[in-house]
């Protein structure tokens, strides 16, 4: 498995009439999940989220690719 860097969001059973909607749906969900948290709590939430998603992806080669890209830009 290689890391998918193309737009990839969708929700089962949902029909989209505008291409921007699925990415915006996700982004709103992400930001709303942080609502009313302190900076420390948000940091913890992000760490938990990364661990959950990493385990879901599972493939360490793919994760290594993502980790490298994430690190390059910091």
């Amino acid at each position, binding site marked *: 498995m290689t890391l*998918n*860097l*193309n*737009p*990839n*969001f969708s929700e089962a059973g949902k*029909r989209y*009439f*505008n*291409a*921007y909607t699925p*990415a*915006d749906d*996700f*982004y*709103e969900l*992400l*930001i709303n999940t*942080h609502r009313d*948290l302190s*900076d420390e709590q*948000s*940091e913890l939430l*992000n760490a938990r989220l990364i661990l959950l998603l990493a385990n879901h992806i599972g493939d360490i080669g793919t994760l290594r690719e993502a980790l490298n*890209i994430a690190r390059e*830009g910091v």
Partner: protein
Amino acid sequence: MLKTYNYPKFEYRRPPEIASGKTLRVPVVVVGAGPVGLAAALDLQQQDLPVLLLDEDDTVSIGSRGVCYAKRALEILDRYGVGDAVCSKGVSWNVGRTFFREEEVYNFNLVPEPDHHRPGMVNLQQYYLEEYLAASAAARPEIELRWKNKVVSVAQGDRTVTLKVETEDGFYTIETDWLIAADGARSPIRRMLGLEVEGKIFMDRFLIADVVMKAEFPSERWFWFDPPFHPGQSVLLHRQTDSVYRIDFQLGWDADPEQAKKPENVLPRIKAMLGDEREFELEWVSVYTFQCRRMGRFNHGNVLFVGDAAHQVSPFGARGANSGLQDADNLGWKLKLVMAGLAPAALLDSYSEERICAADENLLNSTRSTDFITPKSKVSRTFRNAVLGLAKDHAFGRALVNSGRLSVPAFLTTSSLNTPDCAGDTFAGRMVPGAPMDDAPVVENGEAGWLHNKVGHRFAALYFAQDAAVLPAPTLAALSNLSWQGIEVRPLVISAGPGLLAGDVPVLEDARGVAARRYDAQPGTVYLLRPDQHVAARWRSFDADKVRAAVAKATCNV
């Protein structure tokens, strides 16, 4: 005043009711001659209704306001007789550039999809649009325009609305069956009737500057996040007509609007942005905050709210005037049928339901853009900046960048006016019941034209055929007889091959099959379109009774 534009002064005439002391009785009054009020008056005129349009001023919009008009709005403006004027005076643009700090992170090219009459977006200062609409309205004797006529009180009765109107010569009274309030975001009518509008003011201020560029500058949309010349904030540059560029500087909530507006504070900002070598002249400056809110319902008995009076959105995405024009488009035919006794008043509830659905979509999208552009928390800003950093190299990052999602018409897929597809009828594509109709090039009587102009502003039944010349006589007779209980349904045959008339039904040639493809049509497929050019129903085979039932459903006659 502006250097590039001369404001027209519309003539005030002393209303005859002032001398006579008589109450003026009319069927419909529209209050507010902004783009949406003018559109509402023109829409009703096209439905053969006489309209009285009142405005407290005698000119068009002052200063820099609406800028972008989207394809669907342009198609509606075609029906009001100003589509050509707006498109030829306005500027089209396709390229958008997004900058983050010092560098361009990506650009997009909205190459217009071929085979549509109108482009995706045209930029034009609001005063031009109003000028053209006012001229179109003034040319129609069924529309009476009364400038410098200010409504000072409104009393709503069971059957009529009574307005007290102030002019420089004194007061007079109007009694009307229907009142359309197009009197803007602060709607005095709404306030006088004690009606609420709910939502929130965004805690931010924006400085608008219109500048005239002295030298060539590209027709592009430029959006900066956190640029070096305006750190921590966002800036948007848009080209308008007459080489006037509109610049929106985000100021933050703490900025002092009076200070920010002063030329000695504005000019250095613009110079820092454009570079010292570019000459420009300042045309207009103002500071605004915005609100995202809407009324709980848009119809209150015989008073109907349209445009900003009913709903307001943030400016990102150009969803204000564009959605107001669609309000007018949705309302005109419904009010006509109700006034003519051809549909129950419940049809006007569907105006409110459908346009609330559209308003909520506009509020959602413009709020999402606002939240991306002006993050409300540290973590939100971190994510925003991470997206912008990834966007440079990765397509998924670009999809997440939200500097405004440009106005598109709502797909009214949940409307109670729709007839769902019959079991077994399957269709691909976007033309589902409730969809705004897609345009396509067609030929009628040897002349090239556009489908959206051919269907007009009545119900239309599109019958797709391989060869219009060989349609059976009973089919043609049934197509000619679709009008139902006084509601006109105009049949049109869309034929792959050439033809003039099928029986007495007009034939539109779809030589390259664009219409058939967009509607996923096969020979025998039928689409019923509403007068506002949304799909009401569709079938794989023609059954006149089903079409009539769908017309009944689309007009609340069930």
